[in-house]
């Protein structure tokens, strides 16, 4: 991974390289003030995830504002802290249901265009969900994308509703053709 990164490093902007290095060397210099300065965002998110436990602290009883950008990028950490593992798992299952329906709809399409459109929309939706939740769990580098339908967003919310609308529309078309 290091080798791959050093090849593409000159091509990406500086702040992306910094985020990537932070993700790779997350525990370097731990515990120290330098480590905290570099990684407080992810560290606070991980602390929130740990504090939530199985059932969470309860709605209104956590400290979500300790995590920077909790309204947008790290809304998953707030859910995990206050609603616990059960709540965060429910969110993942809801997203999974949309993804699986998208894949099923794509494979039931009779026309190639519908297949490509639904596949593209499902992949786009899935990628953003995986990247955001992966970033909050420190499985993937932080990218700054919002969690669809939950985070503080304006245009993104309308776009993702439109993507799901296209999936539903093609699903309706498949349903009509199978009647």
């Amino acid at each position, binding site marked *: 991974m290091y080798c791959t990164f050093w090849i593409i490093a000159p091509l990406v902007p500086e702040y992306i390289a910094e985020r990537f290095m932070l993700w790779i060397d997350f525990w370097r210099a731990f515990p120290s003030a330098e480590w905290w300065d570099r990684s407080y965002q992810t560290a606070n998110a991980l602390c929130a995830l740990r504090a939530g436990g199985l059932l969470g602290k*309860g709605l209104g009883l956590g400290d979500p504002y300790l995590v920077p950008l909790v*309204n947008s990028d790290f809304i998953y950490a707030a*859910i995990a802290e206050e609603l616990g593992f059960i709540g965060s798992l429910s*969110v993942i299952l809801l997203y999974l249901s949309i993804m699986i329906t998208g894949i099923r709809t794509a494979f039931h399409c009779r026309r190639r265009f519908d297949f490509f459109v639904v596949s593209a929309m499902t992949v786009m939706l899935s990628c953003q969900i995986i990247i955001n939740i992966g970033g909050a769990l420190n499985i993937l580098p932080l990218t700054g994308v919002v969690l669809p339908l939950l985070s*503080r967003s304006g245009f993104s919310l309308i776009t993702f*509703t439109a993507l799901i609308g296209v999936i539903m529309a093609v699903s309706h078309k498949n349903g009509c053709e199978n009647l």
Partner: protein
Amino acid sequence: MFNITFSGILFSLRSVVPLLVFACAASAVVFVFKCINYQGSFIPAAALILLMELGLLLKVRLAIFPKNALYPETIPVGFNGTVWYYVLLYIFSLVVLVVIVMLFFCRRQIRLWRTGRLLEWLSVPHKRDRSASGGKDKYIVTFAATVSIVGMLIVLASLFNDGKFLFSRIPWETAKVLIPLSLSGFLTENSRLLQPFQNSKLTISLTGWGPFFLMAGVPLFLFSRGEVYLALTRRLRTGNDLYNKHSAASFYCDKEYYFSVSLY
């Protein structure tokens, strides 16, 4: 009066009203789907509504209790502005959902540019539609329109709205719908000619796949140029700004601090 106790916290009726309003709007949407005899899967709609309701609940919670609800100094900060803004935005999104699904019901009633189907008119993948809509390769028009719209929004946002369009610094959300649509049109029209394996030999034709990679790569170029432009006008925050200026304690400050850092 009219208070609700939930997990030991006293919620006023005012904090529940936005959730009820959205629930009514969601019920209306389900009713509309039933009325128009929707034949597809209801799972995405159900998941969407549940996720939106949870999102709204979190926004109500974050607006009412900026810190922990047990701390005595908690006050409702920005409740009216923030929460009702999101209620309206969520309801508007549901309207967008209904409109997009309804476009497929208008196949025979409203004939849009003599084809009747908006999505397919944009890419023209169907042989029957080609003669009516002016031939093939219309995905290029869609693609060009997408790039133009995104570019125009970047310029407009940077001129009039301090570099932001509906909270997006670079309004690439437009491209999330239109670029896959044009790429799907390209693949539909050309996929038969783009077989990577012919006679058990790997043959990747640059003339065939070149336009596809070009179309897929242009957004990256466009967005990176947008970032360069915003960085030049000092509207783009950098990694160092984030590390130096954001701290956990500073986020206890009000919204003004957050926006002042974001718009650095």
